[in-house]
């Protein structure tokens, strides 16, 4: 295992100064996520425009470097995407973390893929995978306007 792999510079940088922090105005969707094992929390606020594309996405959260960085990077990558495109990106991300593959999504350019790949280090730290995926599950929940809060323990 390699700490430098987990805590890559880009992660540290996003962890220290997360983008899109706070509650955006006029959000149309929201959801809370919670990891009962460690107490990590995230609250995402989402504004979909008339074309059902992500116009704005912000979050409030309390968690470790990994979970903050993941949420921060997520908010950057999905802006302008449709709901289906967001899901495609999320699946590509989960796939990469679980199955050790590359990021495979046609909705991301190479730079964006590199950004997401910076989270690949968690593969070697199984207890930290949930830190990296919580915000994504919560975004999905907001998109689907699920009533229940996201709880990492019920995510496969």
């Amino acid at each position, binding site marked *: 295992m390699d700490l430098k792999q987990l805590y890559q510079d880009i992660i540290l940088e996003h962890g220290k100064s997360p983008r899109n922090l706070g509650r955006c105005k006029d959000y149309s969707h929201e959801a809370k996520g*919670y990891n*009962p*094992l*460690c107490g990590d929390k995230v609250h995402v606020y989402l504004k979909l425009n008339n074309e059902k594309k992500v116009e704005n996405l912000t979050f409030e959260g309390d968690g470790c470097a990994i979970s903050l960085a993941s949420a921060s990077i997520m908010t950057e990558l999905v802006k302008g995407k449709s709901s289906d495109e967001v899901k495609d990106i999320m699946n590509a991300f989960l796939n990469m973390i679980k199955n050790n593959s590359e990021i495979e999504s046609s909705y991301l350019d190479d730079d964006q893929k590199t950004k997401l790949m910076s989270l690949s280090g968690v593969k070697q730290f*199984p*207890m*930290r995978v949930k830190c990296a995926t919580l915000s994504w599950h919560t975004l999905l929940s907001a998109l689907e306007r699920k009533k229940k809060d996201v*709880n990492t*323990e*019920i995510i496969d």
Partner: protein
Amino acid sequence: MNINEIKSQFPIFSKKINGKQLVYLDSSNSSQKPLSVINRLNDFYKNEFSNIGRSIHSLAVNATNKFEETRVGVKNFINAKFKEEIIFTKNATEAINLVATTFGQKYIKDGDEIIITELEHHSNYVPWNFLRENKKAIIKFAPINEDGDIVISKLQELITSKTKIIAVSHLSNVTGTIVPIKEIIEIARKKNVPVLVDGCQSVPHISVDVSDLDCDFYAFSGHKVYGPTGVGILYAKKKWLEKLPPYIGGGAMISEVKKDKITYAPLPEKYEAGTMPTAEVITFNESIKFIKSIGMDNLIKHEKEITNYALEKLKKINSLKIIGNPKNKAGVIAFTLKGVHPHDIATILDEDGVAIRAGHHCCQILHERLNLTATARASIGIYNTKEDIDILCKAIENCRKVLDLK
């Protein structure tokens, strides 16, 4: 299958009892443990010990993964659909209490009916009795016949619109009756009544497929399946575990804890409060592997052979009576010997190194039904041989001599 090779995997058989070779015929009570299981436990405590779930250091990650591997192992072993349907308890008794308590809390009210059978072990009666004591539920007993078979037509007749659950053994720990559990579940299904199966004696001795049975709940104990003590298993359909309230409350089974309100964790954690029997659950996976290494079919075949041999030989013993004559019988043989009380049999046999059990075997209702207060019981495990049976029979013959009976 080489039985001597298998027997040699059990360290206890190199031990002498009262100077004699151990003939262990008390497996229905608890089975002996193969070396692979004992070694796994030993290794875990020596090299890997940590609590699970809560910590994120390497030892904890490893223990958590191993713990979940057992859950998957059990799921596959009894063919459940989801691993969250496997809940670890301390024994089968707790597993049945978990269902009786939570199901009772949510679904049982004054005058509701619970059906059990005359075959049941106290562990599948007392938990329901609590609902009779505390919620005025009614317990109905499906009768058995003299052979020790449940009279299915009578069970069917007992079902009414007030019947809330049926709780029944898969295999009797006295008569060895293999209950036609699938037939009972089909009957119950038609009337929309859930079924809990007490699988304590079945899981170690016959193939169990909970998906095929389509039962709602299935309970058993690890220590009867060549595993360590301290581990019980409850299989329950996800829909039930989701609907039912929590049972034991504490660490690990919560989601969020506030001063005014607590929310509970998803499955399976919802039902696994506090520190689990971590090492024992992890070790239980080795017990499953042990059975798989033999092959369930081989195990069944071997135990059948020994059982048949035992029945034949025992029947030849003067004034010995075998209790029950069920259509389908596994290797549990309760018997009486005219003029000799079962406790005297057990004591005299023990002098010859033969370990059997005497008493009511936690089945007072069954004994009352058959007009007995106590029986002697020889029960068979994978390690028993024909030679064991020969020694048993000779020791029984000796009983009448010791007691100076003709």
